[in-house]
């Protein structure tokens, strides 16, 4: 009964989304404000029904209702409650429902704050989000109904893919989806700007906090995915340039560019049509990401089972929104007048434009590497793949100037930069970065070049970002820093920490696959690993083989590592659970391979040993970037951005 109610609620939500799309659009175009006012109640109603449907599916999982096909396929009577709940979005149908739920949450949030928007803008924004809802709800109901019954009911479920039974995976998809779906808000604002022809400072101020919030969720989602891969895949890597990783990284890159170009649009009234194009692109890439993952065209750990019908449907959605918005853009973008005067390269806006060029080129390079194999295959050119070396070779040279720009731009004012200020503000951070880089290069020894460069760039970003906050804290600053400025500094500090982490991990990680008998010791990078054997132990819904490895340095044992191999009887899938000893400047990582003597647990095993310096800095840096985004988005000037006109150039607040 409950699943049928859920299905019914989903249908009602689709109807309301249709109303939310069509009625306010018609109202805004024909200037019938009572029609436009339908947007908000329709959005609230749509949220209630989608949330009900989601709750109904969750309920079916909690009570182990194996008469629902989706529950039977992705749960099991042995599955712990926590994973029964996260199994709701563990596969295709449920994750689509999560997508729809996230979208309705964003719509609700926008509609609550829409009172501060001019009524036509508010109506079109909510209506556009309604159109997106219609597409995805129809997709769910027509091709991927999670409430489908299984007759007769299964005695027991097939179980959740063991790979997904991990705390990181409970929150990774919701965060990622919040980010993907969140870009629909910036997209809707862009559509509203195109239709109403109004694109001014106030528009940029409405759009910025939404974009930054979506971006911060995407940042957390990607970082969590990377952290999960490191722990669960047993390969010790944190990024694989897997097509699906790329699919989430492209909107992130374009979203980052959008955040920066919105700053120029807000402060200087420039780059208007470019900003709109970026907003469209960020959402288009989010849709492309969904298409790539859902259609099964990609070979990836993330790929779900192939179903051509679904692929065609998502492709249709993608084409509708991208072609529609680009058509609108082609017709209307010419009308936007940027403020008089060009852009000087040596100015804040000039450097932000450069930042945009690098970020966009980086996104295009990732797009090329991700889609090229698909095109070649479609044209009958054979099966091929693009290896990680390509992405690394393209990415590193593009990132270096970006990080240099981050520091430089912090000392260059809007309109026209002054050389004296750049010199007086940047010599100290530059000197700190250079001296720390020299120290790091000496310590690193063999990998001195890469490590030195990473530290130089990272410390440069951190030290330059600290300049304004430190000045303020010391009371030497004439202007008070707003939250936007604090958030920006924090995010750039995060970027610096991230760069240091990535650089050092890539250059100085060491690894070894070894064969060890009980009692044998293997040395790696000054650490001694002694294999103490493997024991078997039951888990809640699996049996584990738990290895014992003593890690020692200089004869002192500092950790007893317990890497696991888990066997889930419901699926006969083994799973690797790595064990790590963590210090701020390095991880010692051990994962269990396999028993080598005819499956004898007490015999020799293969083990994978890693020493990974500074790997935690990658996730710490990402987290700080997201936190900085959160602080920036809560700046009160965005909340104050009301109907009244605001001056185009606000000299008191710093950059983004």
């Amino acid at each position, binding site marked *: 009964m409950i699943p049928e109610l859920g299905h019914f609620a989903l249908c009602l939500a689709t109807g309301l989304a249709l109303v939310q799309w069509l009625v306010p659009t018609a109202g805004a175009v024909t200037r019938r404000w009572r029609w436009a006012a339908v947007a908000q109640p329709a959005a609230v109603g749509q949220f209630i029904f989608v949330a009900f449907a989601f709750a109904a599916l969750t309920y079916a999982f909690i009570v182990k209702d194996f008469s629902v096909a989706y529950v039977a396929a992705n749960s099991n009577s042995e599955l712990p409650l926590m994973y029964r709940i996260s199994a709701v979005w563990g596969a295709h149908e449920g994750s689509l429902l999560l997508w729809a739920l996230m979208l309705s949450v964003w719509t609700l949030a926008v509609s609550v704050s829409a009172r501060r928007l001019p009524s036509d803008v508010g109506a079109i924004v909510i209506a556009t989000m309604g159109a997106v809802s219609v597409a995805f709800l129809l997709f769910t109901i027509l091709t991927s109904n999670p409430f489908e019954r299984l007759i007769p009911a299964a005695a027991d479920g097939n179980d959740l893919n063991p790979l997904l039974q991990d705390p990181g995976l409970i929150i990774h998809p919701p965060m990622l989806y919040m980010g993907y779906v969140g870009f629909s808000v910036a997209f809707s604002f862009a559509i509203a700007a195109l239709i109403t022809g109004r694109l001014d400072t106030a528009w940029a101020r409405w759009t910025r906090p939404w974009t930054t919030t979506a971006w911060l969720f995407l940042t957390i989602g990607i970082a969590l995915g990377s952290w999960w891969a490191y722990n669960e895949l047993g390969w010790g890597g944190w990024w694989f340039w897997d097509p699906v990783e790329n699919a989430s990284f492209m909107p992130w890159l374009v979203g980052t560019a959008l955040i920066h170009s919105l700053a120029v649009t807000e402060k200087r009234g420039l780059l208007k049509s470019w900003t709109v194009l970026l907003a469209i692109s960020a959402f288009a890439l989010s849709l492309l990401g969904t298409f790539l993952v859902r259609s099964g065209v990609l070979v990836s750990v993330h790929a779900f089972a192939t179903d051509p019908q679904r692929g065609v449907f998502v492709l249709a959605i993608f084409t509708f929104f991208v072609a529609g918005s680009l058509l609108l853009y082609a017709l209307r973008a010419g009308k936007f007048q940027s403020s008089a005067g060009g852009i000087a390269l040596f100015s804040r806006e000039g450097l932000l434009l*450069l930042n945009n060029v690098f970020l966009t080129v980086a996104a295009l390079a990732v797009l090329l590497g991700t889609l090229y194999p698909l095109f070649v295959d479609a044209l009958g050119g054979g*099966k*091929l*793949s693009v290896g990680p070396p390509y992405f690394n070779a393209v990415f590193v040279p*593009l990132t270096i*100037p970006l990080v240099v720009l981050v520091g430089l731009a912090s000392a260059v004012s809007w309109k026209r930069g002054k050389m004296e200020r750049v010199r007086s503000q940047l010599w100290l951070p530059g000197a700190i970065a250079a001296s720390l880089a020299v120290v790091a290069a000496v310590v690193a020894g063999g990998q001195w070049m890469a490590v030195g460069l990473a530290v130089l760039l990272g410390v440069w970003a951190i030290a330059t970002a600290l300049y304004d906050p430190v000045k303020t804290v010391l009371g030497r600053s004439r202007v008070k820093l707003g939250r936007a400025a604090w958030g920006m500094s924090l995010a750039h500090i995060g970027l610096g920490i991230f760069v240091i982490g990535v650089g050092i991990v890539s250059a100085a990680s060491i690894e070894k696959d070894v064969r060890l008998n009980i009692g044998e010791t293997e040395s790696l990078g000054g650490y001694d690993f002694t294999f103490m054997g493997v024991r078997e132990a039951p888990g809640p819904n699996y049996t584990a083989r738990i290895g014992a490895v003593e890690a020692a340095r200089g004869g002192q044992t500092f950790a007893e590592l317990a890497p696991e191999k888990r066997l889930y009887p419901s699926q006969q899938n*083994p799973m690797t659970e790595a064990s790590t000893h963590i210090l701020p400047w390095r991880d010692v990582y051990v994962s269990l391979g396999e028993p*080598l003597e005819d499956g004898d647990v007490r015999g020799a095993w293969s083990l994978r040993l890693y020493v990974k310096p500074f790997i935690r800095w990658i996730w710490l840096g990402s987290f700080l970037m997201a936190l900085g985004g959160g602080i920036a988005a809560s700046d009160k000037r965005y909340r104050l951005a009301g109907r009244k006109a605001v001056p185009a150039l606000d000299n008191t607040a710093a950059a983004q």
Partner: protein
Amino acid sequence: MLAVGALVLGVGAAVALALTAFNQNLMYFYSPSEVLAGDAPEQARIRVGGIVEDGSFVRDPNSLRVDFRLADCDVAVAVTYTGILPDLFREGQGIIAMGNMDGDIFAADEVLAKHDENYMPPELVESLKDKQGTSCMPVAAT
């Protein structure tokens, strides 16, 4: 003008960089029949996909070296690999090996098996079809 010049230069350099790296890192997929027919360029890093032939798996007693044969509809190619195999590697399972041909033996430096036993990479499914396009069972153990 200066800004435009800098942009053109920057984008040009980036594109040149990307395309060079791109060309060097394309990795083509071959079936065992194709590699044994000599279709794959010698020494180029390629991907080979097939089914691990039943009874062909041999583990070296003193190291992490393993040898097995990778089969498609018609033939099987010998593969050697040193390292840890993925969790789902077993005989009869579809896998993809990356590496290069060394004489008649494929020297793999990476072996991938999917994390879902019912899932097969599309290119592997494609290469396991015979000339009429029907799916085949790979050659049996001899």
